Structure formats: structure tokens, C-alpha cells
């Protein structure tokens, strides 16, 4: 297509590339919001859910952890363990996003 070649010249390449990278950035940000949207509900559930809001019901009905009632154990031990796991998942997941969108930060 000879008529389109002038359009692809060096002058207009920069805005196009910028536009493309802005689009990539938007997709990257949207994907990272998805990560957050997965992790925060889990965060809420293990701490406020199991440890506070549904504790009494869980204490009475859920299986015990060792000799400890489930809700009590979640509040004092389980939630903290889950938090650590959440952060590891976050770091690994975001690293994969970085690689996918080749987000190498300039130091």
C-alpha cells in the first residue's frame, strides 16, 4: 500500500507509540486492580469475617483447631498466617503482571 506509507513516517510514529504505551499502561493498571479486588475480600473475610463478625457462630459450629474454637483461633493465629500468605500471593502475582507488560522500572 503505497498511499499509506507517508503516514507511517518517523514524524507520526512517536504519538502512536505513546498512545500504544498509554493503552498498555491502562491495561496494566486495570489488571492490578483485579489483583486487589481478589485479595482484599479474602483479607476482609479472614480477619473481620472469621475473627469478629461470625466468630460466635464459628466457635460453636465450625470444627476446632486442635483444642481451640475456630473463631477464636482465627482471631489470634489464623488471620495473621493468612495475611502473610496474601502478601506472598500479591508479590508473585504482581511480578507476573510486570513481566507480562514488561514493566521494568528504571532505577
Amino acid at each position: 500500500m503505497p498511499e499509506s506509507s507517508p503516514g507511517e513516517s518517523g514524524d507520526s510514529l512517536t504519538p502512536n507509540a505513546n498512545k500504544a504505551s498509554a493503552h498498555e499502561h491502562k491495561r496494566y493498571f486495570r489488571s492490578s486492580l483485579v489483583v486487589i479486588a481478589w485479595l482484599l475480600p479474602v483479607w476482609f473475610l479472614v480477619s473481620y469475617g472469621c475473627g469478629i463478625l461470625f466468630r460466635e457462630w464459628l466457635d460453636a459450629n465450625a470444627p476446632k483447631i486442635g483444642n481451640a474454637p475456630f473463631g477464636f483461633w482465627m482471631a489470634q493465629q489464623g488471620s495473621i498466617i493468612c495475611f502473610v500468605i496474601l502478601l506472598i500471593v500479591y508479590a508473585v502475582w504482581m511480578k507476573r503482571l510486570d513481566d507480562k507488560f514488561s514493566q521494568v522500572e528504571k532505577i
Partner: protein
Amino acid sequence: MSQDLLNFIFIGGSFGLYIYIAFSSRASSTKEYYTAGGGVSPFANGMATAADWMSAATFISMAGTVAISGYDGSRFLMGWTGGFVLLTVLMVPYLRKFGKPTVPDFIGDRFYSKVARGVAVVCAIFICMTYIMGQMRGVGVVFSQLFGISIQSGVLVGASIVFVYAGLGGMKGITYTQVAQYCVMAFAYTIPAIFISIALTNNFIPQLGLIGDYNAAGPAVPFLEKLNKINTDLGFSEFTSGRLDTINMFCITAALMCGTAGLPHVIVRFFTVKNVASVRRSACWTLGFIAVIYLTAPTIGSFSRVNLITQLEDRSYADVPQWFLEFEATGQMAWVDKNDDGKIQYFGPGKSESNTNTVFVGAGPMYPGTDTPADQLVGKHGERLLANRADETNPNELWFGNDIMVMANPQMAGLPMWVIALLMAGCIAAALSTAAGLLLVLSTSISHDLMKKIIKPSLTDREEVNYARAASFIALAVAAYFGINPPSAFIAKTVAFAFGLAASSFFPTLLIGIFSKRMNKQGAIAGMLCGITFTIGYIIYFQFLGGSSAEYLWGITPEGIGFVGMIINFVVSFLVSSLTAPPPTYIQEMVVNIHVPGSDTATLSMGGEESEGETRDGVGGEGI
């Protein structure tokens, strides 16, 4: 070898180490003073942040709180760890991308306004001051226990030590010192727990001991059942149930979590690593190291409660253990023989008509002066007499500060002397590391954000660091004063207020600043002011002006009010912002750019390219 000598060896040795590290890595430029030059490895930074985070309050008071209140203590356990998830997922990667060394700096630039920066500086000062007060109190408790001096002199000794190495060393010195301090703390905290767990439950992992069986005397029974029975027999509520209502549990935990995510001295820690990916890794390490201590705290709390009660309850004063006499001498335990039988009785609120178990009238024990006659100083069984009137509405005779639970723990369990010495060294490490980190933020806020960016932009690097040092001296003097005259009876509570303030001011403003393009300066300023004013007002009214608990808003205590303050901040911010003009285009572009680690337009890098960072600062900032 005597206990005192061992204490001196352990503490002297650890001090020598800290000072050596602080001296050999002391800061030579403002950049090293504020962010250690930005090149600390994620692992080391994680350890240092954990030490920074674990304050004297955590170390000394948290296990005590769990011991006293059982399940209710979970609000501190969850609040102070769960906040890290919020912090890591929502805040620090973006703030790190933005690349400004302090929180007021971010707010000042993002909201393109000196007023916003000024408000942020004031908030930072309030938060850090409240927090340092708690630390100073903790230092005082440790030193008074250690040298048998009063808490007042303990606070003064601690304050002077913190000043020497935090004020001089800057962030670089502090970071590497904190790595050493974390190691001391972790050993000091877990080793006694392991010994006690073996003694009580035959299990060398305390976390398994907690959910295992109690084996110390008689046939094996589930440990928590044993503890529940001890509690209910004495008129306390069940250990695994607690007394706090759900709404307060929720609000306090939320205030602590959001406060964690808004604490300037924690956020600043993540500026010391290289890039955004390192920030995420560093946060994993941090929470991992913190979890080691936080998973141990509830075990120490419950074990020490069993030990305390089995050793003191219904024992005659003539043969109480030696440690009781020591704590009595320093005024951290007291016994009032209400029924005059020479035995110690310890009861919960359930054993009296009035539903209380206060031992005496007044907030803490007071003692008659030294010039009073001897029969008013020492009771007929040999106990130390109080100046307070006994509270005769209930039969409880034993008073002790929550803060001693961890300290008395090894002695109660009869552990070897070196364990006690190690614990002392750990307590001091905890208090020093946090106080140092906070002091740094406080002095930076004043020297960098107030002096350099608002009042006198022509400051040179050297002058700025000198201002920082002067500011840390003044801040420490004020903190020491409040450490001696604490506004609240025990450490964890004072610290909880600091979190309320952070939750109601920084957390919402930072969050909106990061994620909303539309938020303008009017909204942010109004939100911060309303949030923090409401929270401070509520705390002051109920804590100092004698508001009664019947007047609580929806029954929420001052500790949990930060959560409501936070919601007020959010609502006011969006309301005001929607009524005023949107922010300039370059600000909106800046917000888009901090969402993506690799975009270069807003990268104000901190590692080496100072000049580039400065010019971009001029473009994106307010044009100083």
C-alpha cells in the same frame, strides 16, 4: 553470677553493637539521613521495618493485654498485622513510584498546595508525638525494672540514649541498627515462650502448645479449657469469649488497620529500597518477621495468665515468690489485704455486686512519702502500703499493671537467669528501634516539609540536617514529659490513639490521592481537617474532659473512633471535591503515571539522579 551482672552484660553488649553499627553507617548527606540512600536490600529492610514496627508497646504490653482480656486482645493482633496487607496492596508501591521521601511531601505535591502540605505536617507531628509518648513510657518501665529506679528516671535515661543515636545517625544508621535489634527481639520474645510452653504443655512449639493439652499438674486437660475454667472460677469472663461488643471490636480493629496503613514512619521505610518490585518483596519479609512475634504473643499471654494465677491466688503473703516482692517495690504490683487474712485473693468483676474488680480508688497506685512513719509504709504482713483508699465494693486484692506480664513471665516460670537478661535486652531494643524511627519522621517533617518546603526554601543540605537534629531534641523532650505523665493508664491504649489519628487523617487522603484523578486540593484539605479534628476532639473529650461512657457515639470507645473519623474524611473529601473545580491536567497525568511502575513520566527516582528528581519536582510540584 548474679542477675544484675548478667543484665548488664547482655544489655551492655547489645548497646555496644548498636552504637558500633550506628557509628559505622552514619549518614553523610540528607538523602542518607532521610532514606538511607535508597539501596537497602528487601530482606534487610524487611527486618528493619519489623523492628521499627514492633514497639515497646507491642513487646511489653500486647501479651499483657491478651492475658487480661483473652479474645478481646485479638483486636491488637489482627489490627497491627492486617494493616500491612492494606499498606502493601493499596499504598506503598504507588507512593514509592511517586518517589517523595516523606508523606507530607506526597500530599503537598499531589494536591499542589502548601496548605495541604502544612496540614499534613501538623497531622504527622500529632501522630508521631502520640506514638513516641507510648514508647517513652515503655522505655521507662523497662529501665525502672532493670535498675530498680522510678519510672520517671527510667524515662529520662531512655530519652537520652535514643537522642544520641537516632538524632545523629539518621535513617541509614537506624536501618542497620534495627536489623540487629530485630534479631535480639525475636530471640528474646520466642525463647521464654518455648521454655514456658515445654513446662506447661510439653510442646516445644508455643503455638501448638496453645491449642494442645495442659500437662503441668494433674491429668492432661485441653489448655484453653483449663484457662477458661480458671477465669470463670475467679469471676472473669471466659478467656476465649471476651467482653467487648462486636461493634467496638470491629471499629477498633479497623482503626488500627487503617492507622497502620497511614502511619508515616512505616510508609517511609519502603523508600529505602530500590524499586517497586523490591517494595513488594520487602513487605512480605516485613510481615513474615512481624508474624513470628505476633503469633507468639497470644501464647505468652495465655501461658503467663495461668502461671500468675496458680502462683499468687490464695497464697499467704509470707510465702509469695521473690518476683512479686520485686515488682511490688517498683510499684507495678500491689496487694491490699481487704479481708485481713494475710492471703492474696484475685477476683474478676463477676464476684461482686458492683460488677467491678478495682482494688483501690484512683487510676494507679500512689505511695505515701518517705517522711511518713514506718507503720504507714509497711503493713502488718510486710506488704507495701498504698496511699490510695481501698475499694471495698468488691473482694479483689491484687493489682498489677498489664505492662509487666511479659517482664515477669520468665521469673514466674522459673527460667534461667540469662533468659531474663535476654528479655531485658529485647525490651530495650524494641523501645529504642521504634522511638528512633518515629523521631526521624518527626524531625524530617519539621526540617524538610516545614522549614525547607514552606518557610525557607534556601536551606542547604547541611542546615536542613541540623534543623532535623534540633527538632528531634525538642520532640524527645516533649515525649519524655508525657512519658512521665502519661495521658492514659497503659501503653497499648496510648498507642491506639495514634493509630486512630493516622486512620482519620492520612489513610483516606493518601488512598484518594493515589486512586482518584478527580480529587482536588479543597477536598483533601477539608477531609483531613474534619477527620483529624473530629477524632482528636472525641479522644480529648472522653479521655481528659471527663466525658462518661454513656455519651459514646453508638457506644464506640475513643480507641475505635478513628474508624468513624476515617469515614468522615472520605465523605467530606468527595463532597467538597465534587463542588469545586477539578485539579489541573498535569496533576491528573501524574496520578495516572504513579499507577504504573514502568512509566517514566512521573518517575522521580531517588537512587542517584538527584538533579533529575529536583527538576521534575519543579514541574510536578507547586513551583517553589
